[in-house]
């Protein structure tokens, strides 16, 4: 990675991939490349965010995303604080904006926010001067997840432009789906969705996405499948009749994969419901990149943190040399 990369503008925050240019998204992915190696070292630390204070403000339960961010922050040398909605002033009725202003008054530099309401990240970003990173807002966006998905596909298939990617499952309620749609389309991939129509949002074709009614057709078509988690709650609220039937009609199984003409790459943002949307034989099989996604998650988040803190894309390589 010795070629010079074009400079790009990320702005103050990362609230979503919608509206970001192809240069910016590619720039983030390229910046993640040198950071991958840091996590492979015995001493997993570079000092590029030394002295920075970062708050992980999680209004929704999260394991993977929160820990991934925390590792990314710590491996870059930042000081971090985790706040979850239980056991904080949130449960005492403090508004989001007041919580943010109070944190701001303690002189912080960045906030990573996870929130159940769509738009919460941009709401916060518009109201505080700190950098805001969206760690998932309602059903809107989860930009770092899509970035790590894209990085993983690029690792495996060598490119994104011109690829066919299908997202399978509960598209209506998925922020991962939206961020992937915006990001992949900007980078020139073809994107489709597949699932029961009750879980496909109205008007999604107008975002430039095609729809498959049958998972077999999606598997036949796609270079990569991003299989979304199906929440038990969707059955209780009547979107689908049962998880059993979901697995039989839409489950990504080895039998279905074997019928396809090619080896489709399998992604899953986790946590998986084995035996519902994905079978173990697929999740643990040779086409799966589910664990590399998790590994890449840390590198992508390091890149985003580094860039928002003012780091230059070309400097990431140099930053990594700073290790003692």
């Amino acid at each position, binding site marked *: 990675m010795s070629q010079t990369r074009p400079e790009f503008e990320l702005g103050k925050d990362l609230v979503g991939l*919608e509206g970001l240019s192809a240069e910016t998204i590619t720039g983030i992915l390229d910046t993640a490349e040198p950071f991958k190696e840091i996590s492979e070292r015995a001493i997993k630390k570079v000092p590029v965010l030394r002295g920075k204070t970062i708050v992980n403000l999680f209004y929704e339960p999260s394991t993977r995303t929160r820990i991934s961010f925390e590792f990314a922050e710590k491996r870059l040398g930042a000081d971090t604080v985790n706040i979850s909605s239980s056991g904080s002033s949130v449960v005492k009725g403090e*508004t*989001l*904006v007041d919580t943010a202003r109070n944190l701001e008054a303690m002189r912080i530099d960045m906030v990573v926010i996870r*929130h*159940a*309401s*769509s*738009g*919460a990240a*941009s*709401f916060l970003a518009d109201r505080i001067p700190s950098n805001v990173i969206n760690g998932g*807002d*309602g*059903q*809107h*966006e989860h930009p770092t997840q899509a970035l790590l998905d894209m990085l993983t596909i690029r690792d495996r298939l060598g490119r994104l432009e011109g690829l066919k990617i299908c997202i399978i499952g509960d598209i209506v309620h998925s*922020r991962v789906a*939206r961020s992937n749609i915006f990001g992949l389309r900007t980078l020139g991939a073809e994107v489709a969705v597949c699932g029961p129509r009750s879980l496909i*949002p*109205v*008007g*999604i074709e*107008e*975002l430039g996405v095609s729809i498959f009614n049958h998972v077999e057709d999606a598997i036949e078509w796609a270079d990569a499948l991003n299989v979304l988690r199906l929440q038990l709650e969707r059955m209780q609220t009547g979107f689908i009749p049962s998880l059993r039937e979901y697995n039989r009609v839409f489950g990504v199984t080895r039998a279905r994969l074997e019928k396809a003409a090619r080896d489709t790459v399998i992604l899953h943002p986790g946590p998986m419901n084995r035996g519902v949307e994905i079978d173990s034989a697929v999740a643990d099989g040779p086409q799966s990149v589910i664990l590399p996604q998790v590994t890449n998650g840390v590198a992508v988040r390091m890149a985003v943190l580094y860039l928002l803190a003012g780091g230059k894309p070309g400097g990431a390589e140099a930053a990594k040399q700073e290790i003692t």
Partner: protein
Amino acid sequence: MNRPLILRGGRIVDPSQDLDGVADVLVSDGRIEAVGQDIAGPDEAEVLDVSGQVVAPGLIDLHVHLREPGGEGKETIHTGSHAALAGGFTTVWAMPNTDPPIDDPAAVGYLRLAARVARGTQVMPIGAASIGQKGERMTEVGELVKAGAVAVSDDGAPVWDTGLMRRLLEYTQTFGIPVLQHAEDISLAGGVMNEGVVATALGLRGLPNAAESCIVARDIQLAELTGGHLHVCHVSARQSVEQLRLAKEKGLTVTSEVTPHHLILTDEMCRGYNTEAKVNPPLRTEADVEAVAQGLLDGVIDIIATDHAPHTYEEKEQEFDYAPFGINGLETAFGLSMRALVQTGRLTLSGLIDRMSCNPARIMGLEGGALRPGSPADIVVLDPDEKWTVDPTDFRSKSRNTPIAGWELVGRVHRTLVAGEVRFVRD
């Protein structure tokens, strides 16, 4: 009693008698005594020069939320009735979804008393259609009417139970009042903005057109079955207009209203999670805006009503999901309707006055909405050409929630007279 008053030299626009020309208006004892050229009037009469301005029957808004009792942080009868005056309204109908709801005669009496004390616009109370607006048991409609209620409604929520809606449309006929329906199928609801590509991109839950039009279709069937007066509130979906068109063709006693915001704004306004554009029914698409406007022009939709829904800054300054539905409408209604219909050349000023004053009076059998001798002297004096910028900090309303702050509108109210008394003068 006040001195007689002559409004001298204004352009009289009264579509109820096809009047559009310069004349004087003589007012005495709260009523219009004469309209004509060079009225002399009694010696003691006060003369107001209104040349260059339009004199029209006072606007009538059949759908406002004044929030009192229970929501005084948002609006009171006092602030709301003065906001109405500033918007040119001489009569408003107040929805009963207060806390507690207006579901008994004493509450109706309280509203009337508070309105009299406020000396703003005339406030006519709407009674709750069901006890506690729970949609289960009918209120004592007769007692509510006796106390001064002019209609019944569970607005804020629909009368959801089909059987209850039928009974209401039957029972209200004894008292000659309409049932005002907030048409929304609650099992299709649960969204926070219009269902469509904008909601999908924003990740916000959608309210489909069918949530409204299903109930409109159902209620039209019930109006046909019962012969009762159904009035459909705030029509927003093009499919509802199709249903209403059929109802009019059948000659049913079905009337309806559209808000100024549904005549011009679309769901694109919600981008950026703009909670000022969060309203129910939601702002929809261009095709819907076009259809409701055409419905109004064709007479399928009878009137414009604001659905004035004040909310505090703190309530709107939240995540989109948590912010309440509603737009503050009284003080921008005339200018925004001018922009939607008159400036686009689709309707004359007279046609607009018809839909904001004469028609509301006609469909509900009210006394106002005309400048004839003997009519109540409920009058608005306005400048249809004046440009002004919407500045919510100037609102008389206690709240400032509007998605059109900063918009330049044309057409502004200057004076509002209620029963011959000048109750509002713009500085």
